[in-house]
């Protein structure tokens, strides 16, 4: 990674940056961080791109609304267009947008017209029903509802239609009078007088039909008639509307409503809305204005509705023909719109890509500096040193494309700045690299643990998840994802959980395969064992002994054991050892965990050696790496050795069952010491006084002395780690401080000029000295923290690896419980009901196996593995204080834009 300065001719800059964007290997630095976003050079171009994007989004929205499929970009992504093409694009979008807006406007107007006509049609139809109902008195009673049931409750003025005509009429009149009075009281106009007179003076029986029904009787004069308005209103507004009418008109209106069954399209938002037809009867002009105002307030649309049935019929006919006409026109408009959109849909993705690329290029150009002559742009960028050639080539291509004669200049720059970290990855390693980056991006040029993680991660996972069956499930899932990689990738599934799984498909595959391997070693498949090679153990008991005893022992030093081990993994006979299977497995798995852990940590410490060598920290090798590795080896690796010694030197002697020979006893399991106790005693410098008779105190000759020496040497390493580095740094600084005055001394003797120099040097020196002094105390503190962390860490980390055993045990036990409590019950049931029972039980068992044992246990094992890597392994060498190389790449920009859209 090198910092480069790039001089670009202003004409060629665009093309060059575009080429670099295709390449995606260059990270530009912002050279004018103090300048506001809107004060930069190419802000106008960026704004134009924003505008184009807006138009495209509008187009896209319209396309989506019509459900037209948008063509994916066939094959290659389009290249970023030339700046001059931008104007063409702008013109195209402008034209399309305007055309579409116009079409939409027309369509909306037509639709509004259509809506009005449809509503009118419904009104005519529904009111017809009302009028018919009214004309047929026999149906009135049950059908008609009155406005405002509150009225009933409030005044007890039952304005019921139907049989109690007289009563109804009277109350109506009463209302009218009240109203009249109130109007007079308010000093209102006397327009309603005639109405009242009419109401009061007329014979009630005669008049009834009009008041209630608004039905035209040709013999009656117009002046007595109640008026009505008819209209359409949103269905959800009906209750409030009704209440408001009742309140504002004091119950002097009568409202009928009917729902329009089919939803109507709202022209402005093109949503489907449900509406109702209503008709309001009332009397007098004042009420009319009121009712109209309320209708307006509730956004009800009123339509003229002729009173005579013949007129209505005629009007309905007219409406129908107009609807037909409108339908054809509307169809044509829609067709036109559709054509425009289909044409746009073919290119829209392409355009999006183009516009986004242009925008990205100008954003990048905004990061550049303009030189004094305004002729060229200066950029600073991080470039991978290996790719210099490719970048040069791309730049040359860009220059050629732009037709500029002056080639761009790419200069390497010396810098003290920390370069960004860039690890090349393929699709297989990237998932593992992300696991590492999740902890922290590697400091520049630090050892990257990702390659080792590829093996250790699935392996440690598998140690915890050792089950052939469950492992196979995971492996199959992982394999399926890897096999169907391309189609699945193309699907672009949004679900976050799926994306996590899919991103880690190779990890999952490897985890599954390794789990199958450890499952074979543990001889565990859904908590059962496989007897592939035939067990090495035989039962030599007689049948009646077997029948009588619950527990029997098989002795390895008798003929029960064939004297050669099961060829691979654990002998399946342990599956039957109900009393000591767990004890045996625990001892085995615990030791395995510690062994793996110590090796893993040792490996981590060795990694730090490469770091020290690369960064030329010689002191660190001597006072950090060596004491660290000595400490770890002498204490914990020695413990591992003790385990191997115990495994190899203690055990049964074939054919010597119950022998009293001291040699046999001394090497028998009876005399095998506990490693843990031995280790604790070693640290405490004491021998175990409670050794059993006939057994040796030690595992091998000279153990005590050797152990004491190990502990002493290991403890001696601690002060070296603690003080070594600060001491060397201090000494180095002192030497520097001493050599500098010495160097300046002879100069000072030369004269006034040199004196000046010394005077100038002194103030410069003083702050430096203070600075370094401060640093020393900091170095001490840091070193103390690191040392304590390491020393305590090696104890706690070693213990931490026991989680390998613990999780493995938990998994095995859970699997066993699932088998014994569920599937075994099903398998033991008899008869054909048993079959059904088994069918049900198997479903339960399978569900639990997948959800709890595979998913949850798998997740927990995954997290523990992650922790073992991050904390126990990487803490030995990995600082993770770098920052990521983020090259300017169209691919990344388009991807993120696409995601943001969704």
């Amino acid at each position, binding site marked *: 990674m090198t910092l480069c300065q790039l001089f670009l001719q202003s004409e060629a800059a665009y093309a060059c940056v575009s080429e670099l964007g295709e390449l995606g290997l260059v990270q530009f630095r912002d050279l004018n961080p103090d300048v*506001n*976003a*809107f*004060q930069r050079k190419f*802000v106008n171009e*960026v*704004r134009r791109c*924003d*505008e184009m*994007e*807006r138009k495209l*989004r*509008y187009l896209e929205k319209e396309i989506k609304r019509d459900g037209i499929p948008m063509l994916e970009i066939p094959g290659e992504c389009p290249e970023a267009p030339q700046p001059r093409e931008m104007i063409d694009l702008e013109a195209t979008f402008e034209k399309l947008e305007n055309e579409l807006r116009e079409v939409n406007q027309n369509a909306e107007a037509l639709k509004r017209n259509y809506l009005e006509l449809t509503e009118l049609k419904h009104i005519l139809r529904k009111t017809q029903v009302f009028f018919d109902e009214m004309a047929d008195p026999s149906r009135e009673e049950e059908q008609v509802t009155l406005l405002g049931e509150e009225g009933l409750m409030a005044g007890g003025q039952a304005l019921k239609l139907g049989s109690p005509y007289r009563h109804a009429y009277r109350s109506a009149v009463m209302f009218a009078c009240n109203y009249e009075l109130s109007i007079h009281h*308010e000093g209102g106009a006397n327009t309603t007088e005639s109405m009242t007179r009419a109401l009061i003076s007329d014979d009630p029986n005669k008049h009834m039909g009009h008041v209630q029904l608004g039905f035209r009787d040709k013999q009656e004069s117009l002046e007595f008639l109640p008026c009505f308005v008819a209209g359409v209103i949103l269905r959800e*507004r009906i209750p*409030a509307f009704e*209440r*408001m009418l009742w*309140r*504002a008109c004091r119950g002097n209106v009568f409202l009928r409503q009917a729902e329009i069954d089919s939803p109507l399209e709202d022209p402005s938002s093109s949503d489907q809305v449900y509406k109702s037809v209503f008709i309001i009867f009332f009397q007098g002009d004042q009420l009319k204005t*009121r009712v109209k*105002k*309320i209708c*307006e*307030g*509730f*956004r009800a649309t009123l339509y003229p509705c002729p009173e005579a049935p013949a007129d209505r019929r005629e009007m309905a006919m007219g409406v129908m023909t107009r609807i037909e006409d409108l339908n054809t026109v509307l169809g044509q408009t829609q067709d036109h719109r559709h054509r425009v959109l289909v044409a746009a849909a073919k290119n829209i993705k392409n355009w999006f890509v183009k516009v986004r690329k242009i925008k990205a290029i100008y954003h990048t150009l905004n990061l550049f500096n303009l030189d004094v002559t305004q002729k060229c742009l200066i950029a600073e960028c991080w470039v991978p040193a290996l790719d210099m050639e490719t970048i040069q080539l791309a730049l040359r291509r860009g220059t050629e494309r732009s037709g500029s004669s002056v080639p761009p200049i790419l200069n390497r720059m010396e810098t003290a700045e920390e370069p960004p970290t860039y690890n090349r990855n393929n699709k297989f390693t990237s998932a593992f690299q992300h696991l590492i980056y999740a902890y922290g991006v590697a400091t520049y040029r630090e050892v990257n643990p990702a390659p080792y993680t590829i093996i250790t991660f699935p392996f440690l996972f598998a140690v915890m998840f050792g089950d052939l069956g469950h492992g196979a499930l995971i492996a199959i899932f992982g394999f399926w994802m890897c096999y169907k990689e391309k189609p699945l990738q193309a699907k672009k599934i949004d679900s976050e959980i799926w994306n996590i799984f899919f991103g880690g498909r190779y990890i999952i595959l490897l985890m599954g395969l390794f789990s199958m391997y450890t499952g074979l070693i543990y001889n565990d498949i859904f908590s059962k064992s496989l007897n592939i090679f035939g067990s090495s153990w035989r039962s030599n008991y007689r049948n009646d002994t077997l029948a009588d005893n619950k527990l029997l022992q098989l002795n390895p030093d008798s003929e029960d054991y064939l004297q050669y081990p099961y060829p691979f993994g654990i002998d399946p006979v342990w599956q039957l050892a109900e009393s000591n299977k767990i004890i045996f497995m625990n001892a085995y798995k615990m030791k395995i965990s510690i062994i793996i852990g110590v090796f893993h940590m040792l490996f981590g410490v060795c990694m730090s050696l490469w770091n020290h060598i690369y960064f030329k920290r010689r002191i660190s090798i001597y006072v950090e790496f060596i004491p660290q590795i000595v400490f770890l080896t002498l204490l914990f690796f020695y413990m591992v050795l003790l385990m191997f010694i115990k495994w190899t030197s203690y055990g049964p002697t074939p054919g010597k069952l119950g022998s009293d020979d001291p040699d046999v006893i001394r090497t028998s399991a009876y005399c095998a010491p506990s490693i843990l106790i031995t280790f604790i005693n070693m640290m405490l410098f004491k021998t175990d006084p409670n050794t059993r008779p006939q057994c040796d105190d030690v595992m091998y000759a000279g153990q005590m002395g050797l152990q004491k020496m190990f502990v002493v040497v290991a403890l001696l390493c601690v002060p070296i780690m603690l003080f070594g580095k600060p001491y060397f740094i201090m000494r180095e600084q002192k030497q520097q401080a001493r050599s500098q005055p010495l160097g300046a001394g002879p100069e000072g003797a030369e004269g006034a000029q040199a004196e000046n120099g010394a005077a100038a040097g002194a103030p410069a020196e003083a702050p430096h000295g203070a600075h370094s002094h401060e640093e020393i105390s900091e170095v001490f503190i840091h070193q103390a923290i690191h040392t304590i962390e390491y020393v305590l860490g090696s104890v706690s980390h070693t213990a931490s690896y026991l989680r390998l055993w613990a999780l493995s045990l938990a998994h095995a036990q859970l699997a066993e419980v699932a088998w014994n409590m569920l599937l075994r019950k099903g398998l033991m049931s008899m008869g054909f009901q048993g079959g059904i029972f088994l069918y049900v039980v198997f479903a339960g068992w399978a569900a639990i196996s997948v959800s709890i044992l595979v998913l949850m246990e798998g997740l927990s094992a995954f997290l523990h593995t992650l922790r073992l890597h991050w904390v126990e392994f990487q803490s030995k060498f990995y600082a993770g204080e770098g920052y990521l190389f983020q090259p300017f790449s169209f691919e990344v920009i388009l991807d993120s834009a696409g995601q943001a859209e969704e």
Partner: protein
Amino acid sequence: MKGCIFNIDGGYLEGLCRGFKCGILKQSDYLNLVQCETLEDLKLHLQGTDYGTFLANEPSPLAVSTIDDKLREKLVIEFQHLRNHSVEPLSTFLDFITYSYMIDNIILLITGTLHQRPISELIPKCHPLGSFEQMEAIHVAATPAELYNAVLVDTPLAPFFVDCISEQDLDEMNIEIIRNTLYKAYLEAFYEFCKQIGGTTADVMCEILAFEADRRAIIITINSFGTELSKDDRAKLYPRCGKLNPDGLAALARADDYEQVKAVAEYYAEYSALFEGAGSNVGDKTLEDKFFEHEVSLNVHAFLQQFHFGVFYSYLKLKEQECRNIVWISECVAQKHRAKIDNYIPIF
């Protein structure tokens, strides 16, 4: 004890609200905004803040009104999100906040109809937080009694309106009286409600509402000079939940000119400071701005305490102030009138 169980119902929303609050523009943002040459620059800068792409879909020649609408739209969406996820008593509290917008809307509509403006023209000017179903039919009413009986009786404002029914008809003066009576009743009810909730909410909200009440009393007094409003009528309009109550209000009721109001405020430390700093000269801040500043500082203080509802109120008010600021700046930018561009009220 209240704090312990606060998070069961209000924890999520408080967190959300505090998160929203972090999106409020900082002083540095304002410094950048006032440097803008055009509204496009303003848009570009706002894109870098919490507002994000709220203007991205607007066609290019931006109008200040569009910015205003969009700002308000965003605020309303956020507030309604909070409201939709709230449970009692927070939901009532949030509803209470919206009542003041309802009052404003009603007054706006009545005034509009009084001036013969069509209702369809007035509706878009109403604040969306204060809209209610019967709102658009408000012009049916010709007298306050009718207004109450026909329109407001179903709305939550009904109890506040009881005092105004006596007014004879709707003219400019009466509308103002109705507005102030409504506000008085509303503020007092809100104050009582917060008291009843108790705890930190009461501490924080009563402080803010008391200031609001006093501000109204002072402003009413100052605005009433030279109008036909009698002193008795004026005294009836003072909200009685502030710190001025009762002595200060009595003194205000007797005031005849600005100096006397100022003399009343002298007795109250926080208000006298506001009057001190205010002046009508060019470059001085107006009393109104001073009040706004004080309000902002009170609202910012509300965020210093936890487990109370005051943050929701304060957030809304601060955000409103921010909208006013942005609109002010964009007006200045649009009209090329940069002399007064710095008259915004910074929040943080």
